[in-house]
Each structure stands twice: as C-alpha cells, then as structure tokens.
C-alpha cells in the first residue's frame, strides 16, 4: 500500500516572462519523499518556494524540470483532477454563487457521478464536519471557520489519495486556528491519507507534522520529525527558525587557553568566554581560531546550578516577560544578547545582575562559514 506516497525528484521551478525568458527560480532542485499516510509539513519564510512546490504537486504550476510521482506514477503531465489530489486554499476559494451543497458537489457533478452517490457522500461528509444544517446557504452567510470547513469538506468528498493544504489556517482568528488545527490532525488520523501542509507558522508545523521540511530560498534546509528538528538542527537557519523564542546564537571564535578550548564571543575584548568541555571540545577541536556560532535554546539557560554541565554566566536583565509559570528574560551577557526561559514565578527587574547557568550538554555549535552544524 503506497498509493498515497509522493516522490519529488530534482524538482526545479523557474518562472518565465511573456517571451519565455527566465525571470526567477522559486524551487532549486529539491528531492523529497513523502510516505503513504504521512503528514508532511513544508515550512519556511515567505518566498521560500514551499507554496510553489505544493502547487506543482497539485498540477497548478508547470514543472520546469524534475519529476513528481504520486503512488509510483509520474504525474508531471497529468491534469490536477487526474492526480488523485484535493487542495484546500488559504482564502478558502469557495464558489460564492453556489450553495454549500453545490460547492461540495461540484467536483462530483463534473465527474458525472450519480445523484444518489453525490447526495450520499456530501451528506455524510457535511454531517461529519457539522455542516449538515447549512447546506442550502451560500458561503457569505457562513463564518470564517465554517467556510474553511466547507473547503475541507469539498476536499474530502473527492476522496483523494493526497490532501494538499496551502496555509489553510492563516485567515482564521487565533482561537479558531487552534481548533481547526486539531480538527485537521483528527481528520488525518481518521482518513489516514497522505497530507502535505504548507505553512509559515512554525507552531503549526511542530504541532501537526509527522515530519517537517524546512525550506529557504527554494532549497530544503532540513527534513526531520519535529523533535529532531528542534534538538538537532542541521544548520543556523533551522536553529533560528524553529522554536519560539528562537535559539540563542552567539557569534565568536574557538581559542586555545591554558591547554583547553574556549569559545570567545565577538571580536571585542569584553566578549563572553565559555569553556568547551567534553563533547564540545571534540567538536570544536578542528575549529581553533576559526569563526563558529554557539547556539543554545532559551530553556537551557537556568537560574540554578543543576550539575557539572552547567557553566555560570553573569548577565544583566534587559527585559523580563513573566508568563506565569515561566519567564522569558532578555539578557545582556558580554556583547551579546540572549533570551532565557526560566521556570518558576520569580520576578526579574530591569538592570538586575543575574548569574545564568548554561547547560553545555544541550549546546549546538555551527560552522560560521558554511552555517552547518558541527558534528
């Protein structure tokens, strides 16, 4: 059973102008395999090529080079309707002049299904989505969440092998977004279909995806499950993109002092100095006197000594954001800025001197030149 598997090989999309001259390359030779039944999230900042990739899978954009196969069949030249896909758009894209019933039935009507079949499958889907009492209404009489549910329903009745979502929640308000997020996750669990979900919101990516594909400037930066992505980012971009607040990234050099390696932050004299012990020493040994980036997640900065892996750093509080059970503390240490996520209900004051314990076990080091993680 791999009929919902999507295989993208060496995919390139170059846009051309009226005369066929290339103007802009949105997707630069990416390869990605999506398993049957997998929930794959494409995430990245705007203009990273994630939507273009999705639209090529849908068949709405022509493929410049490379292949896309769905269920082992190359679909490059197939019309969207023949690819076994359904798509949910950011702006819902409902047909405003049709009733909800007709909106959902349109595809089946075009496919010349019988009336009984159409009313049966639209009825069943609308019931499951809680839309059955508004089938005779038109889209303008529905709220944003209901409209998005109609768009979902329209996708479901096509019983596709692959669902494609193009930022489906970004037009909803915060509360509705959380609700629809779990509804789509539930839908995935129920139907077991392959889903490809495009978003710029890393929270959506982390909470929904089986695997996440982080993209930038038409390239794939890393593909991994949410926790791997969070714990072991492959490069600076992923480290900075995933996580809120993002990973603290300090630029500096590896230096040898008194026989052991240290990380010296910045070029200035009063930069922060952190010892590189154990695992980090091995990693940094090839980078003596070279530029690296020292990355540590906000939650790995603690206010108490826990074990020997923690190194104290004296810092000054610049801003404190108490969130209840934890505080986000913006610190100035040396010449750099760091954010710490500190548990407990302690209140920090502006300008206060705090000794922060950095957990060296959780630190990632990046090569400043290639921006890749040092392994």
């Amino acid at each position: 059973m791999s009929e919902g598997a999507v295989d993208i090989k060496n995919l390139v999309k170059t846009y051309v102008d009226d005369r066929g001259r290339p103007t802009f390359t949105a997707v630069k030779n990416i390869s990605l395999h999506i398993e049957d039944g997998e929930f794959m999230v494409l995430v990245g900042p705007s203009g990273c090529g994630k939507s273009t990739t999705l639209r090529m899978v849908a068949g709405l954009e022509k493929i410049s080079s490379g292949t896309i196969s769905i269920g082992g069949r190359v679909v490059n030249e197939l019309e969207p309707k023949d690819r076994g896909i359904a798509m949910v758009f950011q702006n819902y894209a409902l047909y405003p002049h049709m009733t909800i019933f007709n909106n959902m039935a349109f595809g089946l009507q075009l496919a010349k299904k019988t009336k009984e079949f159409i009313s049966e499958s639209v009825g069943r889907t609308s019931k499951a989505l809680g839309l059955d009492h508004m089938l005779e209404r038109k889209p303008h009489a529905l709220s944003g969440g209901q409209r998005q549910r109609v768009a979902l329903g329209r996708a479901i009745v096509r019983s596709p092998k692959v669902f494609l979502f193009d930022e489906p929640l970004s037009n909803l308000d915060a509360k509705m977004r959380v609700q629809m997020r779990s509804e789509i996750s539930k839908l995935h669990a129920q139907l077991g279909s392959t889903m490809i979900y495009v978003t710029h919101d890393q929270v959506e990516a982390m909470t929904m995806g089986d695997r996440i594909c982080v993209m930038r400037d038409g390239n794939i930066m890393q593909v991994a499950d949410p926790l791997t992505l969070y714990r072991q980012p492959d490069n600076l971009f992923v480290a900075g993109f995933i996580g809120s607040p993002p990973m603290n990234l300090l630029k500096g050099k590896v230096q040898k002092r008194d026989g052991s390696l240290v990380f010296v932050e910045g070029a200035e004299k009063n930069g922060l100095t952190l010892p590189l012990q154990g695992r980090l020493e091995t990693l940094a040994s090839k980078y003596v006197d070279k530029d690296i980036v020292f990355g540590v997640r906000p939650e790995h900065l603690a206010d108490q000594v826990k074990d020997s892996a923690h190194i104290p750093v004296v810092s000054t509080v610049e801003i404190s954001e108490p969130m209840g059970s934890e505080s986000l503390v913006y610190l100035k240490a040396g010449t750099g800025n760091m954010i710490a996520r500190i548990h407990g209900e302690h209140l920090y004051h502006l300008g206060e001197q705090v000794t922060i314990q950095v957990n060296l076990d959780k630190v990632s080091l990046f090569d400043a030149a290639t921006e890749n993680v040092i392994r």
Partner: protein
Amino acid sequence: MTASQKLLVRKTIAHAFMICFLILILVPFVMVVSASFRQGNFAPSRFIPDKVSLDHWRYVFGIPYQEVVNPATGETRLIKPTTPPLFWFWNSIKVSFIASTGIILLSGSAAYAFARLQFRFRAITLNSLLILQMFPMVLSLVAFYVILDFLGQYFQWTGLNTHAGLIMVYLGGISNYIWMIKGYFETIPPSMEESARIDGASQFQTFTRILIPISLPIFAVVFILSFISYMSEYPVASVVLQSGDNWTLAVGANSFLYEQEKLWGRFAALAVLSGVPITVVFLMCQRFVIGGLTSGGVKE
C-alpha cells in the same frame, strides 16, 4: 450652536443642494414631455400646455389623425406617417440588443484572455486598445462607409443600409468594455478557478460555470452602458442606414428636424419613447448590479 442645530443646518444645506440638482436634471425632461403633448410643433412654451393634444403620440404610433392647418378657418388635413416611427423604435431595440449581446460575448471572452492567460504581445495589445478607444468612433466614419460598401458587393446582407452592417460597426467599440471587464476579473482571486480546475472543470467550464456567474454585475453594467449608447447613437447610424424603413430611432427622430421646419413635437414624443426600453433594460439588469456577489467565497 448646539450639535443638533449644527446637524440641522448641515442637513438643510445638503437637501437644498440635492433639490437644486434634481431640478437641473428634471426640468429638461419635463420640457420634452410637455412638448410632446403640446399642439403644434413649437419648442418653447409653457410647462403645462394650454391645450393637451395627443397628435404627436398618434403620429409616433402610426395612427392617422386630422391636423389643424389653419386655426383661423379651422381647415384640417389627414396626417399619416409613411414609415411609422414605431418601426424605427423596433429597429433601435433590435440593433442595440443584438449589438450589446455581441459586445458582452466578445469583450467577456477577450477580457478573460487578457486577465488570465499568458501570451506574447499581451501588454502591447492591451495598451493599443486603450489608445484606440481614445479616438471617437465618428473619426473612422469614412472608413466604415468604404468597408461596408465593399462588403456589400459580396455579402449583400452585411453591406451599407443593413442592420447587420451597423451591428458589425458597433461591435468594434469593445475596447473600453474589455478594460472594464478585465479589471473586474482581476479582482476575482485565481484560487477560485484553480479550485475548479482541481475539481475537474475544463478551462471553458471554469469560465462558464465559475467566472461568468460571479461576474454577472459587470456584465449587467456593460450591457446597460452599451445598450444606452447604441439606443441614442446617431452619427454612424445616419451614415450607414439610408432608407427610411431601416432607420433607428435617433436617425428617425432627427429626420423631423428639417432645415425649414423643425417638428419639435414629434421629436419630443419619439425622444420620450426611446427612454422606455432603456428604463426597462436598466430595471431588468439592476438586480444583478449588486455589490458583494463575490463576498464570502474567499477571504483576503
């Protein structure tokens, strides 16, 4: 002055302005209506005629009547129009209706191409249309005459002095309508059509089943505008149509204004009559010309 007094003053001024404006619009109309019910063919007179006469309306509807030739002797003569003006009225409706329908078909499909398809010389074509529409149709009158004369030698039904020929000339004036409809199409998000494509609609089905129903308001507007302009179009029609039974209303009405004797009464009656189909078309199309037909389908 208190706030409510201020509001009262503002309201009074606004109403006074609007009433003045209404008078400005209505007075000429009332004058024309009154002229059509007046005895004799004189333009200026009182608003309310001394003696109401249906003579001009009888003439327009082709009903023979006795006209007083010499009021002193009471001498009358029988007046019966050679071509009943109602015939011109029908010609006008026929020509305007067919031309407007054609305009919608042509400019709608052309606008779709310009709004949605990528092809070479798209921008240049669009801009030349924009420049072409700046020249009034009258400027090419001589060319139309020659072209129709030439065509008439081979296809008699579309030469000079035929309605088909006139309609063909009228269909040439679509460039501003193309721009109008294209502008409307561009406000419709492409995702709606993409969605239809995924649902399995062909390009033609997408156009007819999604784009056209959504665009009814702009089609209604284009229909009304072109219908009105062709109902009252004179210069081209007067050159193309030569025989009296082919005339449109505007040409026919103008025929009452001889150099020596301007028959304002008949002219007025015909002018009032020409407003009827325009009003009917407007009322019919009005229900489509409602904003927000696309509302709800997408969220920007």
